[in-house]
């Protein structure tokens, strides 16, 4: 099967500043060692058609989506949402085949959690690279919430994560790549 029991998908487009929050969280999480039944995927803009419509409910039991959410809080604040809390059209399939939302289809068979972060700036339709400071600072907390949600041992991983951050890895996002 393509996707294992637990799927964590970071959604959003890094070309629109804070919209790259989801992929940035995934990039950080790729440095952790997680159990084999967990997949962490940089979904980009492809979430609806590459992941949500391709999950097999007999294998996958938990889907965690990391994305931006505008819920009127201070930028960088994190919230946990259910599919029911989403405004209509939030994850409409990009192909909008019957104007139905794939998450609505799977929510009864798969446990879906959306972890949303309040953005400071989304620059659509202008391109801009890089997260704002508030949203960048929300990444460790988000990872903590995700690990808690999937039940991975809290203390050790977080310690590792803090060490990783001290080495400056969080700032790596796309800026200091070398050949």
């Amino acid at each position: 099967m393509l996707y294992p029991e637990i799927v964590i998908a970071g959604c959003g487009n890094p070309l629109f500043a804070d919209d790259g929050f989801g992929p940035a969280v995934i990039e950080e999480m790729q440095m952790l060692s997680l159990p084999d039944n967990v997949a962490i995927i940089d979904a980009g803009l492809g979430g609806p058609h590459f992941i949500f419509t391709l999950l097999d409910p007999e294998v996958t039991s938990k889907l965690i989506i990391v994305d931006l959410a505008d819920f009127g809080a201070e930028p960088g604040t994190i919230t946990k949402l259910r599919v029911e809390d989403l405004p209509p059209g939030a994850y409409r399939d990009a192909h909008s085949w019957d104007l139905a939302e794939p998450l609505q289809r799977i929510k009864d068979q798969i446990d879906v959690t959306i972890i949303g972060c309040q953005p400071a700036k989304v620059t659509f339709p202008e391109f801009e690279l890089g997260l704002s400071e508030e949203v960048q600072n929300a990444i460790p907390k988000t990872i903590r919430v995700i690990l808690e949600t999937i039940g991975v041992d809290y203390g050790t991983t977080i310690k590792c994560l803090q060490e990783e951050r001290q080495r400056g890895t969080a700032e790596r996002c796309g800026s200091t790549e070398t050949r």
Partner: protein
Amino acid sequence: MSKVVEISPTTRHEGHSKLVLKVNDAGIIETGNWCSITPVRGVEKLAIGKTPEQVPKIASRVCGICPIAHTIAATEAMEASIKCEIPKDALMLRHILQLANRCHSIALHDILILPDFYIPGTETKINPFTPEEPVRSVAKRIQRLREIGQTIGQISGGECIHPSNTRVGGMYRNCSQQAKTKMYDLAKEGLVLAHQQAEFMIAVIRNYHRRDFVDVGGMKVALPKTLGFHDQGYLATHAFYGSSSLEECPSWDPHRFKEARPWDWYMGEMEISLEEPRYPIGGTTKIGTKVNPQMEACTGIPMYDGQPVEVGPRARLVTYKFFDEKGTQGQNVAREMEYQDCFYEMIDCIDALNPNGKVVADYIPDGDGSLGWATNEAPRGCDAHMARVKDWKVQYFSMLVPTTWNFATCSKALEGAPWQLAEVVMRGYDPCVSCATHMIVLDEDNKLVAQKLIQ
């Protein structure tokens, strides 16, 4: 007296586009305008000053459907500019990745067009989500094909959506012998399914186009035998993969390409004078609404040898395999005919792949600022990227994405069709609109005249 009808937004494809149609009293399209209404984004500007490693990553984020084509085309454009030849095994991995993406994409397109068609021998339109046979097993097959495509893509490309394994100079890592065997097994399974799927789809497509009348939202519409015919040319650069300026005999020439401004091409300001509330989904635009495709269109009109051309599966089959069927029917059939070829080719590439071979070029030059281009035959057509790299910095980058080529060609193909079937014609092009927003315009002397103004 001609009337104006607008279908906005168009459905069952990626991105936001609309159709503005001038129709005669019988409802036949006299002039059709299909245009993207996704605002312009300046990927070309953003790329300047970045390293060649970063730009393919930026390019892959432009669109959610074909990140693989954009990654490969952008990477190869960089390699073409710095004149770096990649090892054969790296190329094989890229071929496999490309074909895996096509395998997923055709399956997805099948789901999107199926609701237009009938179950052969009945008057029932196909609902791909119904739990009843025979559609249920087709839907399962489509899902399995998509899974196979994504899994093979994940193995060869590193990640299944935005491939992380490609790099300027080749690939980061080769796959293991076990991974090669797994890809081979999956491809063999996929080949059988692709055969079945193509046969089913071709039967359904032929059945539809043999009908005299078809149903659209409860309206009985006469189906012309020339639905979607046009006299524009075709552009394809390879039977399945692509070409680049590094090749001895490149199959694309940037000098034959020119771009016209949308305001020279599309219709000007008009008022909607025909409204049809029965049209799915939610009816057409209300009478009295003002439309202005000239100003609303977000793409230029790319021309090859002075005219818009068609890109995509039929263009590939016409150019390389003597295919001669025209219209929407020919287009959909061509796409299905590519399905088995896609797996045959993939199996050949997996055979040729040596898991112990090197996948990174020994020497990666820094670039001297010369123009390099690469094309990649994305599922929906030719994706051409051009770049200039000097001292490991990108000086110039431009993307000519598949659906941009097709906008003007499809607009021509709409002429003569009943307006209710305009979306059927459009879906034949498997449009992916959101990345089709490249907007640097050249005038007749090939000078840069304007960045698009949005009003």
